[in-house]
């Protein structure tokens, strides 16, 4: 026995027979929140929310009209980007790197089933992505409730709609990150693809396609058809979901259709190419 080594200690404790999913999720959450690349977007979006709330507070004493549904909608425009960033950075390597590094075998050879493993990992991803999306909503709402005595009409019904809007986005982008990583077999590639495709579509829809929109307006009279990016489409859902009368220029439910398609795409790809062991010759 090497010097300094003690005798083998026996252990007589009892092993829990409960689900391992909370253990998997807890460890994943701990590691995500210690990851600088995940901390950055989380801190930035929460700092942005604090800054806006600070700005509101300077107006609250004067009782001006800055506390409006329109202002709330504008504030939340940036939230989907934070959710997208967190989902792409955390979600793309989440399952893929475990499979690549052999950690999946460590999980599955312990008292962890594949559903528990997937459930724990996905729950952790959804928790962090939801934090990025829902955190600013809550912060803004609570701050306005504390700072203002008078609220816009229907303000008491805004919170459920806004939370649902933020959570649905978190679920969709999380699925896309996992699905793209499962298909691309490269976590870095999936991260870049997800971020890049949303960014490029946004730039194109807002700038390059502006000319094309005029053509569409000619073809479809009355402005019934719009060229929008997925991000714009989702931003346009918010007023519709919180009951605000902010004109997004098109019917709100089109954004939900797009959301449903992307949701099915992401989670469908993951279901198709879910992590598995096997295939080794030996």
């Amino acid at each position, binding site marked *: *026995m*090497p010097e*300094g*080594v*003690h*005798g*083998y*200690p*026996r*252990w*007589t*404790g009892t*092993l*829990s*027979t*409960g689900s*391992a999913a909370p*253990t*998997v999720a807890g*460890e994943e959450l701990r*590691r995500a929140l210690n990851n600088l690349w995940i901390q950055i977007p989380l801190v930035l979006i929460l700092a942005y929310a604090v800054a806006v709330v600070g700005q509101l507070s300077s107006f609250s004493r004067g009782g001006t009209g800055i506390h409006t549904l329109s202002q709330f909608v504008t504030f939340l425009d940036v939230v989907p980007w934070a959710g997208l960033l967190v989902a792409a950075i955390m979600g793309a390597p989440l399952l893929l790197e475990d499979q690549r*590094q*052999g*950690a999946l*075998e*460590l*999980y*599955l*050879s*312990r*008292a*962890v*089933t*594949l559903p528990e493993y997937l459930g724990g990992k996905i729950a952790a991803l959804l928790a962090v992505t939801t934090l990025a999306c829902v955190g600013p909503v809550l912060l803004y709402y609570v701050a306005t409730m504390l700072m203002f005595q008078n609220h816009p009409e229907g303000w008491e019904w805004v919170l459920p709609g806004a939370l649902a809007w933020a959570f649905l986005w978190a679920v969709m982008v999380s699925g896309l990150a996992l699905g793209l990583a499962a298909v691309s077999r490269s976590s870095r590639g999936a991260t870049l693809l997800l971020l890049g495709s949303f960014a490029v579509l946004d730039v194109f829809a807002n700038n390059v396609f502006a000319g094309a929109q005029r053509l569409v307006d000619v073809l479809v009279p009355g402005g019934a058809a719009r060229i929008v990016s997925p991000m714009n489409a989702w931003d346009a859902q918010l007023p519709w979901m919180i009951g605000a009368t902010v004109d997004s220029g098109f019917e709100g439910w089109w954004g939900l259709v797009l959301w449903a398609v992307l949701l099915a795409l992401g989670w469908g790809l993951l279901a198709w190419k879910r992590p598995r*062991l*096997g*295939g*080794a*010759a*030996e």
Partner: protein
Amino acid sequence: MAALAEFESLVKFYGSHQALGPLSLSLPGGAVGLLGPNGAGKTTLLRILMGVIPPTSGTVRILGEEVNPGAKAVRRKIGYAPEGEALFPELSGVEAVSFAGRLVGMGKVESIERAHQVLDYVDLGEARYRRVETFSTGMRQRLKLAQALVHDPALLVLDEPTEGVDPEARIALLELIAELRAEHGLQVLLSTHLLNDVERLATHALVLRDGRAVTHGPLSELKRAPAGGYLVRVAGGMDKLQEALTARGVAWEPAAANLRVSLDDPREVLRIVAQAGLVVRHLAPFELTLDEAFTQAVAGGASNA
């Protein structure tokens, strides 16, 4: 002692490729070596044993319990150290072992206490707070052993535990595993391509080739030469012994400092030596080395599975 593992018509296909089986045999309790060249099906067999992947058909029992994917009770009895890294590089040693404990159902506090104990035992006490990514290959192998030991399993399943480890560290690691077997009664299933490791640790071996068992049994039986015979060395001149054997029509061949004599009765050997006026210095049944036995089995041994 319950059989370490039992296989009944076990078959595993990956697509159309048959990776394993059909396999029907029983491995006795104790320490068993799983041998085979690359692609023989060792890792596939271990993964099926652990319930990590399902067999295409057939049944597996381990320590008397049937193994099914998702069946956790069996896995709690086993400490598995996989061949791959299977580590989280950003965790510290104690975090990695503690997490492995929590994944089998240990509480957080007791998994940390136990992690410290087993890290001391595998001689990683000094490195317990270092990140795993800074560990050498030998340290990583010890860490995997600590992860396997954290819940004090009845059976250790080790896949290439000395792979990439320097000779000194390898011997220390093997001594540790041997001690776990001999002094603490842990059963061991060791998969390796290093025959010396099996010879040092195991009493029984299963040799796989192309997914099939080409031979299995106690090491002493596997090493028994098919042709038998004895190794003999004498004082007074080996050349005189050669002449005496040739004169009696007994086949012989040099084997290092000895002669391998093709006689099945040792008394006959002694008689020839005495009649030649020589004195026996060494007389022992001829055995293959494990290397030779393995090569022979893999090259053309008939399946006994």
